[in-house]
């Protein structure tokens, strides 16, 4: 599913020295795996996630997603991959303000082909247990509910890969375990789950862990 070879990322900061966020990271993730990426802040896990999520391109090294080399893809091609193959879940939910739960879930369909299937969006919300919340604005939902809307949004285009960046970081324990339960269910369906966390108990859900330190992989292959 994911093949990463000697991946490096160097950030150019104006007026400051270069920051080497990733220094030659290599690993494989097979389709259907549940893997956590763990590391302290500054270890390079965000940089890695951005590249894996096709939001950023590596400075050097190769990244193949489902056999496709995306190191040299155009903005449009990357957007298409994000739209169809990847579902993002963020720590801060990132729902659109002044927009209903249903409309939030529909957005990825707009960028797919413009065919907005409202029934499918409702089904996605039903699936994460938000049947009664279609018309609620994000500001009217609890943190746990917002994160479940975000999960429904991540699922709507049926991606093979879910990238979750500290998805329980802003949630209480009960909401957090609901979100984890949904992620595990998605894993059972055969989706590949990649979870960034620094929480050991969350990491325990995974089959495998990639540990980063100072931009390099300490363990995980």
């Amino acid at each position, binding site marked *: 599913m994911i093949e990463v070879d000697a991946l490096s990322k160097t950030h150019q900061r104006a007026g400051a020295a270069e920051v080497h966020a990733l220094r030659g990271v290599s690993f494989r993730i097979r389709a259907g795996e549940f893997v956590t990426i763990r590391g302290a802040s500054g270890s390079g896990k*965000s940089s890695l996630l951005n590249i894996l999520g096709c939001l950023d391109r590596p400075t050097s090294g190769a990244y193949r997603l489902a056999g496709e080399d995306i190191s040299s893809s155009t903005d449009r091609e990357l957007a298409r991959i994000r739209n169809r193959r990847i579902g993002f879940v963020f720590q801060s939910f990132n729902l659109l303000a002044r927009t209903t739960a249903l409309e939030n879930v529909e957005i990825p369909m707009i960028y797919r082909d413009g065919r907005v299937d409202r029934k499918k969006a409702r089904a996605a919300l039903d699936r994460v247990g938000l049947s009664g919340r279609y018309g609620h604005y994000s500001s009217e939902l609890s943190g746990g509910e917002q994160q479940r809307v975000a999960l429904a949004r991540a699922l709507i285009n049926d991606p093979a890969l879910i990238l979750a960046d500290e998805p329980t970081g802003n949630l209480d324990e009960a909401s957090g375990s609901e979100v984890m339960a949904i992620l595990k269910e998605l894993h059972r369906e055969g989706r590949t789950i990649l979870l960034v966390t620094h929480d050991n108990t969350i990491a325990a859900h995974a089959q495998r862990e990639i540990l980063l330190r100072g931009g390099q992989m300490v363990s995980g292959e």
Partner: protein
Amino acid sequence: MKALAEFAQALRGTIRFRRRSFFMMSGIAVGIASLAMLDSVGENTRRETMKRVKNMLGTFDTVIVRPGGGRTRGMVSLANVEPVLKFSDAQAIAAELAGIKQVGQLQNAFDVEVSYRAQELTPAVFGVSANWLELRGDAVEQGAFWSVEQEQSLARVAVLGSEARKNLFGEETPLQKTIRIGGVPFAVIGTLASRGAGPAGGSLDNLVLIPVTTASKRLFNRDFLTMVIAQLRDPSDADRAVQQITTLLRERHHLAATALDDFTITNPAAVMKQMTNVASTLSRILRGVAWLAMLIGGVVIMSLALIGVSERRKEIGVRRSVGAGRADIVFQFLAEAALVSVAGGAFGIALGLGGANALAAYQKLPLIFSFQSVAQSLALAAAIGLLFGIYPAWRASRVDPIEALRA
């Protein structure tokens, strides 16, 4: 399909941020409103000016020859013109110049007493040729005009302007009645439809028309004309006709090469143009102000859209993460700017028509409303929105999704 869905997103965006959208609309609305008002008021002014000039001059396919070299002040009459423009001159213009279709002759006075029974008045008395109606664009209301035969036989017949008729006859029917003009009896054979006001606002209807031959031989005893109206075959070539008439008359009047013309030729189309130019100078200035308002409206749209971009960084990041490319972001922000300005334009048209309607009612003129100018205004508004939306949209597309999503 995708474009349609993205357009719907843009529409939703303008509604989500309705307060900002409203302020973005306002500048465009003011600009379009002033333009819409100007269109109506300007067109009204132009039509009114044209109508009055036309009332005075008659048709526009003529040039007018008057005796006297300098600029004649006011209306010519037998009392104030030089006796240089003869009947034979008028006949020569018609006969010798190929560009002239026909000529009309005028011999007029303002100090001749006209009476019917006890009623004594001094309307303008015009001795005119039989083709007068055609040259002036006048119409007979009752009765008939005289014929060429009547003119040749020095018939004592008269046609009354509507005001002269009212003053002399009141409600009484004037046809076949006898009036006295300078003591000479004339039979009234017709009346004219009203011409309305001239450029200065005065009446053009207080006159009595009689055959120019009768006027010359039986009434005034003068052999010169006060005006010759020459109708052109090709109205667009008035300058050439003026040139030809000048050459012909100078020759006939035996003027030395150094002598000034002893006649003046005016071109009604040129006069008309001059008068409408004066009217349009004002509207051009106002138009400039409207454009300035529109430009300011565009700048307002741009700066509010830029604020919008920085406030909506997270939204941009989210959209990028779920599959929007840079082009999709550009499209959304451009569409929002266009929507807002078209809405502003529509609002402005409503406002402008309301204002124009009030003004028209005040000036007692019709409200002029053209779908073409409405469509043009909307297109203009959309163009301004798009133009001033380009930079903010480009900025939106350059927002780094990683930075935007981190916050």
